[in-house]
């Protein structure tokens, strides 16, 4: 049977499609996976004062804050992609988002720059912020990370075929539908679409024009270049396929900022970037374009 389940979290809709034998047990497993999304929404939201992330932003400049395994892994993932992308992915960009009106708040300013502002202590498994006013915002990675955790729950309970997405921009596939090689997903950009087949793979998509906010002197997109603190609008869409939805999400944002694939990007990750020249893909054969 095919069982669809949905939930509203992280400002969007998560939808899981599960394939399995009987409903009560499949629903129970699916709900446990959805609960991961709810749990991580409660932990990672920068908009909710009671979230663990808000606690870190408030407290970690005064003292080191202990992290559970998930939060520790997530912070390390941010650290790795930040370094590999040469700063193009930077979760401390939250202060700029607020300053530009992309996020609610009074425009309170603060420093930016993950490498200098965030200290991770592996022995104590703690995080410390070196300056007051740092605002870590995990919006470019949280959905994908939540999908990774949800997929982990499904696999742990023996689910062999499922497609999970958060707001359609973060996707993870477990196995493939019956008699298919993968779950087919279309990526649309400026009237040109490509299809990718996902089997035990994840997809992250970032489109800077996906959300535009009017501001003094024009408009800004929701993807900010943390190095210039301006809108990143060199490309229309960046998509990344890899084994982790969190990694794919973070790199999709980084590629929009960079405007192309850097040499430092891991070979395991496939990239598809749509700009003035149409789709440019990292793999030898681009996914088939569809009308």
């Amino acid at each position: 049977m095919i069982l669809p389940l949905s939930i509203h979290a992280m400002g969007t809709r998560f939808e899981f499609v599960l394939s399995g034998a009987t409903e009560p047990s499949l629903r129970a497993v699916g709900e446990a996976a959805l609960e991961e999304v709810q749990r991580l929404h409660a932990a990672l939201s920068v908009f909710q004062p009671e979230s663990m992330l808000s606690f870190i932003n408030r407290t970690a400049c005064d003292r080191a804050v202990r992290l559970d395994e998930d939060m520790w892994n997530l912070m390390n993932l941010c650290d790795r992609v930040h370094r590999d992308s040469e700063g193009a992915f930077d979760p401390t960009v939250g202060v700029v988002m607020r300053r530009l009106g992309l996020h609610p708040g009074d425009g309170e300013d603060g420093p930016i720059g993950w490498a200098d502002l965030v200290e991770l202590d592996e022995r104590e498994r703690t995080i410390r912020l070196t300056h007051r006013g740092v605002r870590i915002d995990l919006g470019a990675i949280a959905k994908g990370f939540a999908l990774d955790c949800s997929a982990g729950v499904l696999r742990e309970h023996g689910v062999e075929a499922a497609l999970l997405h958060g707001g359609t921009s973060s996707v993870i596939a477990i196995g493939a539908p019956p008699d298919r090689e993968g779950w087919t997903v279309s990526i649309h950009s400026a009237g040109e679409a490509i299809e990718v087949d996902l089997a035990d793979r994840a997809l992250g998509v970032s489109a800077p024009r996906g959300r535009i906010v009017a501001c003094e002197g024009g408009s800004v997109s929701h993807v900010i270049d943390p190095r210039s603190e301006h809108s990143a609008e060199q490309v229309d869409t960046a998509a990344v396929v890899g084994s982790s939805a969190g990694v794919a999400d973070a790199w999709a944002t980084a590629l929009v900022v960079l405007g192309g694939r850097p040499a430092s990007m891991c070979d395991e990750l496939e990239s598809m970037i749509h700009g003035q020249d149409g789709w440019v893909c990292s793999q030898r054969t681009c996914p088939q374009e569809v009308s």
Partner: protein
Amino acid sequence: MSHTTRREFIVQTAGALGAVAFMPSLIAKGAQIDGRLDVAVIGAGRQGRSILGELQKFAGVRVVGICDNNPGRLNSGLRRVQGAEGFADHRAMLDKLSGCKAIVIATPTHLHREIAIDCLGAGRHVYCEAPLAHTVEDCRAIVIAARRASGLVFQSGLEGRSNPIYQLARTFFRSDAVREPVSLEAQDYRKTSWRFPSPDPRFDREINWRLDPEVSLGLAGEMGVHQFDVMMWYLDAIPESVIGAGSIRVYDDGRAVADTIDCALRFPRGLGMRYGASLGNSHGGRYELLRGTNAAIKLAWTAGWMFKEADAPTQGWEVYANRQQFHNEEGITLIADATQLASQGKLQEGVGLPNPPLYYALGDFIASVAEGKPAICDAEAGARATIVAIHAAKSVTGEDIVRIDPSLFQF
């Protein structure tokens, strides 16, 4: 958030129903520990894992042990805390972790009695999740054990008691701001089957104990107990009777525990409380609504509001309130230390609690242990709310009026 002068405020509230958002100080209260307090958690299910997450926020508190007889849950708990030792049996843990002073119990409800008594007998302070037990007899046994354990803290995990918003709102409820209670209402609506996956069929009944009518108090007990307690605490009264009904509206999967219930509780002097809970629809979520002749208070665990009647007198504290949009109405926000917070630019950070309600309950427990203070919600308070919840559960399954014998509360 805009500011409101006293004159503007009076003009606004004179002609329309005003909404007042309760907001305690944005600076989170937290237990201050001199040195280190070692804590262990028994039960690493969903609530146990939430507890582990909140405990890690307290400087000086170290989780040194986690106990669960289900290997999957135990490993899941251990992954969340660095350096904690895992145990399958709580007695083995109590024996080995002799330096661990405080235990948090988050096992299925029907296992609380034995574990709580063992912990107290081993000289440990205890925080026990609510409901305290699934029978009146077990409640009474826990109260007696807690009473005999002199010098030890026993805190019942009724989170409303520690919630700064609920504490603040209670002062208004018990003042002229609300005046005579008219009616009470509470609900907990969510969309979930309440069934948990079990990789090993041997653990299925144990994992899905909430669906086992032999040990589960159903929605009235497991969810309602916290909300019954809020009303009992605010009124300082115990219901005299409860009538309920329940049915399986959505999850007809062989279960015998209702997925949707409605109860009507009767407090002294005829004051009524309606309670509804369901697993089939999440609209409105979880809240309590207390209507009085001057105002109604709505509490939603991380936020609270007061809706004033047009003829209610203006209170002095309202001068310090700021305006806030609430649904389609513009009301006023009540914030403790508003002037100070405004000067710090913190008024814009929202009206929610800075931490989940569980954090404050655990913080009170830690403070009680560290400072030798009485528990904010002792075993007797926990037992009172639990006994009411047991009667509500009985009324749901029997679909009849159940009188609550006042002598049950003489411990």
